[in-house]
């Protein structure tokens, strides 16, 4: 036990401590889920069945969070290479034996359940990088940064080929956050950014024609007014028409007249903003910010480099989901299929997200070892 952290060698008080739950974080997550239920009741056309299915998915997520929280961070560190290896093998196997859905191969059928290996990679990649960097001298030198780069690029390339560009970007983000937090020098960051800027036109050269058009529509949705651009136009109208106070719960005309696409999943934020206005938006952003703040606090107080890097990366990934989703729905960014965490209906991503919160709680509540 660490004598420098008196709070941690006291015997566990109360149920929350015994269950390795972090109360502030848990409170934030439960409040967000509650908001989610309220919005989904309206967005789903007051469909109880949909709410029930969402509740089951949430229960699964919270259950998984509870289970993961019981695992001491040291065990996670030991398991990291195995998890990464397993995720990589499954990713490589997807094009060979995977299930096809809507032209992209993402699913692996494991007999009992269908499973997206890219979801496992969302956790395995930051785990492996945090372990690799945490055990070595910081900040990492150029050679180690390159090793990390390879660890990131291989799974990201496999996922981008599925093709699932959205998830590929998010996983690359999770990896890069570990690197950035590890104190990597600013000139390496600037150099890599420059290199990426130079490489982009070269990459363009290798793309197929149809991939180019898709990318152009991706960058400029207005060029496809019947497809992606239509979604953006309608969801911006929904948000804007909500005004300061909103139109009131169950009164969003845009959503009820079917103008908002995917209104229970990716575009749920548009429904929320239309009905609850800027006041509701402020409340939601405050809730998100408090969860992020708690996550960063846990990272700051984490006992060692591994847990520090892991907690930081997981929290920043959570923030990334929020920013990407809200920016997309409000027309700041091209449309990418990223749900709003804890608010959007269902989704496999929710379960992964809850597992990552379980890790954060484990980091904060397990007795720390002396290094």
């Amino acid at each position, binding site marked *: 036990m660490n004598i420098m952290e008196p709070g941690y060698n006291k015997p566990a008080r109360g149920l929350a401590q015994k269950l390795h739950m972090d109360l502030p974080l848990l409170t934030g997550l439960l409040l967000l889920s509650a908001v989610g239920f309220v919005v989904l009741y309206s967005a789903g056309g007051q469909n109880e069945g949909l709410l029930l299915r969402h509740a089951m998915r949430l229960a699964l997520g919270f259950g998984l969070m509870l289970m993961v929280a019981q695992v001491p961070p040291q065990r996670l560190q030991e398991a990291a*290479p195995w998890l990464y290896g397993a995720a990589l093998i499954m990713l490589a196997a997807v094009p060979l034996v995977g299930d096809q859905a*809507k*032209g992209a191969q993402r699913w692996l059928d494991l007999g009992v359940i269908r499973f997206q290996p890219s979801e496992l990679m969302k956790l395995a990649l930051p785990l492996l990088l945090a372990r690799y960097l945490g*055990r*070595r*001298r*910081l*900040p990492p030198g150029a050679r180690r940064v390159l090793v990390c780069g390879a660890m990131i690029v291989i799974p990201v390339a496999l996922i981008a080929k599925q093709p699932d560009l959205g998830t590929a970007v998010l996983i690359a983000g999770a990896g890069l*956050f570990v690197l*950035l*937090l*590890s*104190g990597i020098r600013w000139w390496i960051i600037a150099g890599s950014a420059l290199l990426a800027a130079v490489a982009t036109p070269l990459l363009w050269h290798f793309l197929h024609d149809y991939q180019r058009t898709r990318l152009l529509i991706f960058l400029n949705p207005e060029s*496809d*007014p*019947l*497809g992606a651009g*239509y979604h953006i*136009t309608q969801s*911006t*109208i*929904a*948000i*804007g*028409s*909500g*005004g*300061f106070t909103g139109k009131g719960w169950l009164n969003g*005309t*845009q959503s009820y*007249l*079917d*103008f908002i*696409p995917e209104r229970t999943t990716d575009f749920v934020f548009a429904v929320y*903003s*239309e009905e609850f*206005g*800027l006041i509701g*938006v*402020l409340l939601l*952003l405050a809730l998100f*910010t408090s969860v*992020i*703040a708690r996550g*960063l606090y846990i*990272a*700051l107080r984490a006992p060692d*480099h591994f847990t*520090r*890097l892991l907690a*930081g990366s997981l929290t*920043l990934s959570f*923030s990334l989901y929020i*920013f990407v989703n*809200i*920016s997309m729905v*409000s*027309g*700041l960014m091209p449309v990418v299929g990223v749900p709003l965490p804890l608010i959007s209906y269902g989704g496999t991503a929710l379960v992964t997200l809850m597992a990552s919160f379980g890790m954060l709680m484990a980091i904060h509540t397990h007795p720390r070892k002396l*290094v």
Partner: protein
Amino acid sequence: MYARISESDRLRDYIRETRLLQNRMFVAAAAVLLLMFVVLARLIYLQVLNQEHYLTLSQNNRISVVAIPPARGLIYDRNGVLLARNLPAFGLEVIPEQVADIEATLRALHEVVAISPADVKRFRRLLKQKRTTRGVLLRLRLSEEELARFAVNRPRFHGVDIVAGVTRDYPLGASTAHAVGYVGRISEDDLDQLGDSNYSGTTHIGKTGIEQAYEDVLHGTVGFEQIETNAQGHRLRILKRTPARAGRNLHLNIDMSLQQLAGQELGGNRGAVVALDPATGAVLALVSQPAFDPNPFVNGIEPGDYQALQSSPDQPLYNRALRGQYPPGSTIKPFVALAGLELGVTDAQRGTFCPGWFQLPGQERRYRDWKEEGHGVMDMTHAISESCDVYFYELAQRLGIDRMHNFLAQFGFGQKSAIDAPGELTGLLPSSAWKRRARNQPWFPGETVITGIGQGYMLATPLQLAVAAATLANRGVRMPPRIVSTIENPLTRNKLAQAALPPLYTVPSGKAANWDTVITGMTEVMHGERGTARGSGAGAAYRIAGKTGTAQVFGLKQDEKYDKDKVPLHLRDHGLFIAFAPVENPRIAIAVIVENGGSGSGAAAPIARKLMDHYLLPSVP
């Protein structure tokens, strides 16, 4: 992992590193906060500064984007005869927002216009996926009577409207069914495959033939209108309009007069005709008989009518020209002969004695010649012109199956011809490797013998036979068959000629004399004293090279005799014929198959002669 952590990694300034990491954490927190403010600023911009604007858009006026489907390209034959056009048609559209009770409206509409269960099913599907168009199509192609009836009853149906559209029409009906194909309503499967907004306003898509193969050329690009509507759904004004770009017109190589003549000549028989221009691969005629009228398929054929077509023993829906696989029979002989010459197994003068049967050394079984008393001594030219089986039994045996397989493959047998129409089959060109693979059995010598006269396992499509004849006419240059010759911009009338295609394959030829021998043999078929098709060659103003063939539909037992009159009609032999003309400068190559026609010379060759006369001779007014 531990082993690779160096000494310097163990001796680290832990306190300093922790401070570095914590500093980064603060940078991250600052970045998150900054982004929160950016998002918030955007939302304030939308919800506070521009609320008025967006509220107007959402409450009083609604923007809807309406797709304008492009006009589908027209299809013409080589002489400008219109084969596929767009006719104006009126449909019935329901605007769900304005209809209080859709079920009641459907029931009431039923009394005014005919609405089939299929219409209702499609309507419900469209209703569910409705996104950009305001109206949902319920009925297509209203008759004039229905149009009038609805007009009278219109006040009863608020939110139901007549929409003007176009429908695809094939003026020549059955004679283009198999070559041009047809369009049909877009199905759910089609939508899944398309998955893009270019088909937002489109109701039909190419289902078969050229309509399917050239879908992307014929379809064009969708246009759209951004329309402001008020709460009652009335159009206020058009905010933005991008016109649709019509699809391209297609000009085919097919000569409709030749195509129709072929259909007439086949008459009530089942069969197929394929005619090619040997030099270019242009498809001059592609006929499969019986055919069917494609027009009912455009807007959904009645289930009963479809059932009748599908269960008809003549299989009118089946494209025999591309998908019919027949034993080539004696039409294979010129190619086997050429194989013998080119591979040095025989020469033109070598004689084979034909006693009316052939026996493999050491085997009992007799392979019979069609001529019971035998042909006597045959050289190659005579063996071709009189179609002596024994000569080719013996030649095939000396070539062996695998050499025969490799040589015949050069003429396109056993593989797709690369024609620009969907669905062709490969036929079957057997080899010992094939038999081991497909049947897990060794190849028997007797099977080689009958392959020499195009019986046994070997199968070829009419298209493949025409391609092989054209390749022979070209002395080895095999062109990919092409139905479409040019693509035309409907506005400028600029024709984009399809780039002249390179040959698919060129048979490496040893000696011109070898080709001469075979072609002379085929010319003797038509014009020789004892040629098997001399009846069809007689009196021609040009010289023809041809070869008859008769394919057995069922196997004869040893020494059993085939008697045409005793055999039921559907077991009678198929008549086959391949030809090209004029011999000196071939302009047409042709393959004709008449199912159960009895014989190639009797049933198929006369049709080919008429078609060649029609194509090669100046038409008499």
